[in-house]
């Protein structure tokens, strides 16, 4: 049991060392888009609009935090893994070592959590600067941060799974454009699902970011805790983890 924790750390250690070399550029680039969203949609467009009884700014900030957590964790976990696997073959070194599949998957996801977490917290702080009234009390803030990290972990597992399953650079960038990008806009990040026809709503409930956005928004705006979304996020986490295990098995065929 001790071994799995130290193995997870060993896998994580390599990526952490790598990130330490480039951390400024890495974080800066991951912040550009969400900051632009925040300014353009929240501060620019959204002034004077109300959604679900809240100002649009208050409504959109948790959505942008969720999408930042989503895209940065996904990319953080998948991009280097994809290159290491396809191009440098250095991922094979891990597969030939006594480190277990569980430790490889979790260890590889952790770098996504770190990168997603840092960026999402930065956007959260920027959002608070624009709308200080959103800061309610420590309890809410802590719950918000915990749910945000949980989201990062689920999305990082998603990234690990996709990087392991897709075996070409083309495939990876197609996936980003066709799946990841639409998700960041559609999953209740910029608008309320209540504004949609119910069929669209049902479809969106089958996407992980919808649940993360819902959880973060409900927490930040002190709405009743959405247990369904909490369960949904956990289920997605389990599915992605199983997908990673499957992908590792498949890679040795």
């Amino acid at each position: 049991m001790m071994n799995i924790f130290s193995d997870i750390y060993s896998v994580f250690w390599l990526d952490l060392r790598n990130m330490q070399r480039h951390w400024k550029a890495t974080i800066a680039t991951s912040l550009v888009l969400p900051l632009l969203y925040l300014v353009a949609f929240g501060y620019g467009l959204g002034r004077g609009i109300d959604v679900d009884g809240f100002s649009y700014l208050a409504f959109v900030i948790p959505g942008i935090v969720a999408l930042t957590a989503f895209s940065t964790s996904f990319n953080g976990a998948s991009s280097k893994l994809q290159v290491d696997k396809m191009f440098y073959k250095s991922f094979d070194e891990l597969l030939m070592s006594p480190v277990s599949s569980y430790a490889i998957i979790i260890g590889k996801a952790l770098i996504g959590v770190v990168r997603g977490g840092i960026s999402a917290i930065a956007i959260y702080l920027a959002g608070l600067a624009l709308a200080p009234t959103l800061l309610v009390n420590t309890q809410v803030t802590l719950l918000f941060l915990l749910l945000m990290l949980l989201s990062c972990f689920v999305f990082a597992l998603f990234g690990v799974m996709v990087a392991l399953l897709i075996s070409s650079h083309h495939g990876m960038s197609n996936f980003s454009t066709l799946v990841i990008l639409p998700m960041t806009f559609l999953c209740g990040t910029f608008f309320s699902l209540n504004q949609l026809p119910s069929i669209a709503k049902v479809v969106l409930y089958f996407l992980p970011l919808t649940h993360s956005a819902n959880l973060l928004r409900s927490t930040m705006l002190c709405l009743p805790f959405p247990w369904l979304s909490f369960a949904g996020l956990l289920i997605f986490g389990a599915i992605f983890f199983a997908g990673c295990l499957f992908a590792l098995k498949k890679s040795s065929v």
Partner: protein
Amino acid sequence: MTDSIYTENLCKNYGSVKAIDNLNLSVPDGEIFGFLGPNGAGKTTTIRVLTTLTHPTSGHVSVGGYNVKYESDAVKKVIGVVQQHLSLDRDLTVRENMEFHARIQHLNSFKRKQRIAELLEYVELTEYADKMVDTLSGGMKKKAAIVCSLIHEPKLLFLDEPTVGLDAQARRRLWDFVRRLNKDGTTIFLTTHYIEEAEVLCDRVGIMHHGQLINVDTPANLREKVGSIVVETLVGNKETHYQFFVNRDAANHYVKGLPSDVKTVIIRESNLEDVFIEQTGEKVGDQ
């Protein structure tokens, strides 16, 4: 004496391609064994199967006395692998790469420091230890990859084309290093398409072609099998023709009897390349 590597009717298919076609091989402990074959012969695929990276389509494989299918964790602890392509993390230093390998091989922090210093010294890389891998020369990168694979003192070392891209001097130094490792008790399994490497470095050589193991023996025995003297003749500008003889007298006798339109005649000792050409009808060539 036990077998470090043992395979029985090993096959690996990729679709309709038979990358390994019914391989029966045993490599005893303590040997330097070389796999000689042209591009696409199945050398890397064999190493991938032996090192647990790829599952065989059929057949039995044991490495270090463990079944690769059922005891892969035990196999992973006794093998070191240097892949065909540099698989270090290029954005990290040599020392960091070594530390990573030491960590995933479960060395404690004391042992890690000790082994890293020891190995750096052993291959004279100490002064480059804190340089980025990307800034090293090809030969140094190779050495760095080798020391990473040795960090946990594996009993069995796999080297996939270890000297490709190295200059003649660096190649020879690497051979010395491999011999030294072997003397210290490491069994070596290497692949190459350099004839000379197979000839001077390996105790035994297996010739691989289209996934099949055509012949296995010591370099000397392989040469003897086809004939230790070869006569090359060129008629007009057509293909070179090779004829093998057990000794020089027989070769000379043959040359005297050649028709007068044969222009170029070379009499020389045979080498593994001749063995290869004789047995496969193709050149090894590293194109």
